[in-house]
């Protein structure tokens, strides 16, 4: 019995505690990510944005949360009730589950598994089920159309995301997320003899085309504008969320923003050196890694928000053309190119 406690109970309790801590921090961060999204959008359009609840509107997201959970959930009578409620649950669970493998600083990761990046790819590809289930179970025309659109869109862009990940993995030689960040400690800057310019070490520079492809595919994968065809309000009212209100709607929103934050973190880990400081000199190295991680992910999110603010929505056939006829050949070519260069230059890990 004593062995059971030391071997299973205590590690289990530690893991639950870590997960809870990550969840709480993540959800608070998401509340401010949501606010930042609205504020940035407002600033681009020369509006004030939410500014009433709390100083500068800082508590707006919490007020929204209260509003959502206090409202009455309405379930359409002709819907498939179980799947109708399962849809938002799947979305939010899958989005949160992905965070188990994200290293926010050196060693700060709940589950440091060998196939981390593959796990992220697998879990982020499951997000589409929440949308399909919700869209189908609503038993209504707009949600079904939206579900079909978003299923096709997410499956298409996953292909190019997969190839981008393969190029990064070729350079790293490991699927472990912490190893990917550690591999970016040395690189171009070290080869050029400038070891303190560590931001030149990261993969965004040698793999710049893939960085751009990944960023745009991440926008499409999370249904962000300009690829928010799933909820194009001028065509589909609110897409798959037409029939949802109160808490189920909030769960869809939450899941969406959690996966956006996840994509920002993935960009940070794959291309921007994760928790590594941008310059390897004294004032920068004093800050703990998690600060750099959040700052970098925040920068990527700022780009997400700016794209939302000033790029008009794509037409659906243009979206498909971009995914299959532009990104897929480009990323496939880059995989071959990177593999060839690594092999013939002898840099393969």
């Amino acid at each position, binding site marked *: 019995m004593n062995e059971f406690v030391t071997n*299973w109970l205590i590690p289990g309790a530690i893991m639950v505690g870590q997960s809870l801590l990550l969840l709480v921090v993540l959800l608070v961060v998401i509340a401010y990510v949501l606010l930042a999204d609205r504020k940035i959008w407002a600033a681009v359009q020369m509006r004030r944005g939410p500014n009433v609840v709390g100083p500068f509107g800082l508590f707006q997201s919490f007020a929204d949360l209260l509003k959502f959970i206090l409202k009455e959930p309405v379930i359409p009578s002709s819907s*498939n009730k179980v*799947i109708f409620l399962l849809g938002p649950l799947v979305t939010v669970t899958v989005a949160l589950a992905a965070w188990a493998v994200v290293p926010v600083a050196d060693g700060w990761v709940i589950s440091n*598994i*060998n*196939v981390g990046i*593959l*796990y992220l*790819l*697998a*879990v982020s*590809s*499951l997000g*589409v*089920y929440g949308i*399909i*289930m919700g869209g*189908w179970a609503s038993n209504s025309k707009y949600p*079904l159309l939206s*579900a*079909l659109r978003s*299923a*096709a869109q*997410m*499956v298409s862009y*996953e292909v190019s995301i997969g190839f981008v990940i393969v190029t990064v993995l070729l350079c790293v030689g490991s*699927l472990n997320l912490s190893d990917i960040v550690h591999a970016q400690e040395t690189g171009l800057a070290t080869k050029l003899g400038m070891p303190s310019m560590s931001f030149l070490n990261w993969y965004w520079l040698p793999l710049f085309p893939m960085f751009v492809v990944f960023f745009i595919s991440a926008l499409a994968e999370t249904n962000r504008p300009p690829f928010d065809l799933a909820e194009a309000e001028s065509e589909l009212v609110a897409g798959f969320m037409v029939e949802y209100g109160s808490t189920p709607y909030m769960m869809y929103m939450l899941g969406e923003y959690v996966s956006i934050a996840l994509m920002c973190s993935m960009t940070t880990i794959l291309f921007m050196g994760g928790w590594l400081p941008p310059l390897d000199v004294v004032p920068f190295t004093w800050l703990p890694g998690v600060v750099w991680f959040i700052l970098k992910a925040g920068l990527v999110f700022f780009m997400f928000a700016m794209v939302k603010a000033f790029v008009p929505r794509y037409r659906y*056939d*243009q979206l498909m*053309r971009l995914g299959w006829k532009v990104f897929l050949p480009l990323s496939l070519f880059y995989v071959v190119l990177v593999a060839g260069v690594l092999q013939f230059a002898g840099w393969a890990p």
Partner: protein
Amino acid sequence: MILQSVFFYLFSAVLLISALMVIGARNPVHSVLFLILAFFNAAALFVLLGAEFLAMLLVVVYVGAVAVLFLFIVMMLDVDFVEMRAGFLQYMPIGLVVGVVLLAELLVAFGGWAVSPDLAANLGEPMPDIAQVSNIEAIGSLLYTKYIFYFQTAALILFVAMVGAIVLTLHHRTDVKRQKIERQVARTVENSIEIVEVETGSGI
């Protein structure tokens, strides 16, 4: 070890029940959702075995792509459930025969390993120690050295199948207007705009 067996029985039970529900559910969309649950539990069993790479691959390929397309098609179909159930008794014997043959083959194959030590020695390369070589390295080094020919042949067959599917479904319709991006990009000011001096009141 106890915890592992608890999880093994949990995942196996859910896997078997959801596999039964795939053929038992009245609504085809529910069937596909149960199929996805079955895939998931199979992946969990792979994780218990230490084959994490296969588990992730199962989720990425089958759950993330194949089952999405299944669901996609099933949602679009206008299935008449009464008609679908009508032939059930008629087709059941054939289905049973197929099932029994499959079960017998599996029993023969797995039973052979247990009974004959010669067969067990033929299992091929034994899996290297998980603690020393990661899953992906082990599979990769086998696939790209010993089985490279089979691997490439399989890839070629898949490629031919893909080309075949595209050829079967591709037909150019001439009666619809399409956007041709390369033509749009190739347009210049010279060949698209003409500036004319028009005298007042005369028209062009």
